[in-house]
């Protein structure tokens, strides 16, 4: 199990290195101004959104602790608050990194041919799909995206793109997934 996890982690690292960092450097070189504007805008938006979320979560937690039946000590309250803040901060960092890498990919890859598909979907595709079929599969989705937007509207077309990518990842990796499930059941 540990070897399998290590293999999966190593493959993921390799993919990220190959397909995003190279494109990120290319993006910075070619589309630097627009890229940084988009990036800063997206990061600021995410920070504001996650801060509001954190504030709401914090208020809810305070209310829960105040109304709780069991008495709580000051230290446990502090631990709870710290844990919730850490959770929110790490979630926001992951979200920003995802958008950052997605945008890097989009700008780096398509400096001449802008992509209309959601950048997060492209990122997901690059992360989940096997290398052999990744480019043609994402190209097919890209080709079918515009007609799909005209037919269904942007929101539904985006939903279908996410659905297709996740389903394709399952269909193309089902043997590995099955092996992972069997290994987990055996360990359990």
């Amino acid at each position, binding site marked *: 199990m540990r070897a399998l996890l290590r293999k999966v982690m190593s493959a993921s690292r390799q993919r990220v290195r190959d397909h995003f960092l190279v494109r990120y450097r290319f993006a910075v070189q070619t589309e630097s101004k627009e890229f940084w504007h988009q990036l800063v805008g997206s990061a600021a938006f995410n920070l504001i959104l996650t801060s509001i979320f954190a504030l709401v979560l914090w208020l809810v937690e305070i209310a829960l602790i105040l109304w709780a039946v069991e008495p709580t000590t000051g230290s446990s309250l502090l631990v709870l608050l710290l844990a919730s803040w850490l959770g929110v901060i790490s979630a926001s960092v992951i979200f920003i990194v995802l958008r950052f890498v997605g945008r890097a990919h989009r700008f780096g890859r398509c400096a001449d*041919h802008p992509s209309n598909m959601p950048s997060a979907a492209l990122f997901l595709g690059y992360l989940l799909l096997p290398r052999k079929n990744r480019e043609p599969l994402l190209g097919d989705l890209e080709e079918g995206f515009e007609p799909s937007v005209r037919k269904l509207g942007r929101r539904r077309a985006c939903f279908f793109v996410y659905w297709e990518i996740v389903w394709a990842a399952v*269909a193309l990796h089902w043997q590995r997934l099955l092996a992972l499930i069997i290994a987990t059941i055996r360990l359990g």
Partner: protein
Amino acid sequence: MSEMVLGPFEESVLAAVFRLRDEAYGVPIMRDLEERLKRRVTVGALYGTLERLESKGLLKSRLGEPTPQRGGRSKKFYTLTASGVRTLQAAWKRTRRRWSGVPAQIHKPA
């Protein structure tokens, strides 16, 4: 040599590749299948099947040039191998044998 038996979807994909000839890549194959099977075909199911057929030696693939409408990504064209053509012929004969003797009235609505 023993005859390779394929599933109905695999047969349909093989037939679509044969029909489309030089234009057999993901999107046209998917459109052809959707038109003929009258159901939605997902990209994942199609590529899974194409990969399986390629590993069986019935198809071979090559990468085309990147195009702007695909966001600068290349197409993957598929062609039938000699073994693929033989398998498709065998599938056609099998289907004909299976349906032989069934009267033409089967096509008319009851």
